[in-house]
């Protein structure tokens, strides 16, 4: 199962995403923003970071890079695409997902171990969770505030397109505590927190059991491997 991770100039968590795919048992493939084909991958991860410095708007410039037209095509044909943090912002800027992401309401970058509820398991990226499962994965962003107009928000909620919701603490002022979304078809998912930082014991969030032992993010990568095998 080949899962591609696109590196844009300024991507930071690309190597972490590649590692997560490997730990989940997949074949991790590095893709470059200047590529014009997807090298036969079965699914794509847009990793976290600050593509092009995120200067104009987060993800704005990356959304126009050469490989993105391929990604948009593939996504429209049903290929599983996951956007993590900056990747989520890129998907939003590319209009593959709804709404917008703006500066955190408190004005600063924040890194914390974030509790989430999995609201929708009907996607290739979340099928390995149970409906309503509570997970803890790291969050780290400066511009993670999700906004949308009322109409969009109602549609997202009404159609069950909210995939992850912040629990206990809303770390950035996101409307309706939205942490992650899917498209109508379900193959495209984006979220602000970082599942790839909770995949390896010893390097994840603390849990009651042991220091740095949290691996709640692994299921996201395992889900897609299973989903692509089944499809």
């Amino acid at each position: 199962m080949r899962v591609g991770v696109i590196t844009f100039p300024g991507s930071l968590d690309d190597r972490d995403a590649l590692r997560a795919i490997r730990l989940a048992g997949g074949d991790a493939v590095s893709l470059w923003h200047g590529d014009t084909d997807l090298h036969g991958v079965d699914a794509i991860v847009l990793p976290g970071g600050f593509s092009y410095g995120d200067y104009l708007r987060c993800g704005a410039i990356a959304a126009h890079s050469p490989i993105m037209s391929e990604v948009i095509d593939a996504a429209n044909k049903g290929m599983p695409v996951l956007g993590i943090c900056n990747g989520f912002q890129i998907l939003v800027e590319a209009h593959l997902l709804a709404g917008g992401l703006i500066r955190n309401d408190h004005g600063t970058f924040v890194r914390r171990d974030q509790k989430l509820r999995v609201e929708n398991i009907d996607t290739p990226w979340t099928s390995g969770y149970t409906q309503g499962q509570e997970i803890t994965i790291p969050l780290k962003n400066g511009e993670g505030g999700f906004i949308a107009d009322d109409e969009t928000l109602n549609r997202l909620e009404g159609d069950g397109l909210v995939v992850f919701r912040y629990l206990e603490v809303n770390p950035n002022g996101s409307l309706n505590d939205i942490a992650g979304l899917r498209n109508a078809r379900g193959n495209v998912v984006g979220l602000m927190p970082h599942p790839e930082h909770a995949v390896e014991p010893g390097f994840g969030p603390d849990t009651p059991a042991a220091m740095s032992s949290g691996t709640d993010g692994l299921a996201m990568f395992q889900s897609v491997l299973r989903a692509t095998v089944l499809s």
Partner: protein
Amino acid sequence: MPKVIVEVMPKEVLLDPAGKATARALQRFGDGEITDVRIGKRFEITIEGEVTPKLLDHIAEVAKDVLSNDVIEDVISIRVAD
């Protein structure tokens, strides 16, 4: 070289937390006349050569596609600087 100014503001109906925070900060200094602040962007684009109507059309396009995100922002003006 001529410059084109593009101005982008967050959509009125949407949240502008940075503007809110700034308004609060200003209210702390002042006498209560300031009721709201919204923060947008001002692009100064330097042009090589002449600013033709065609170029302005083109800039209008990139302003909409790249310089702003039309889901959350509006391009409120495009003009040649004097």
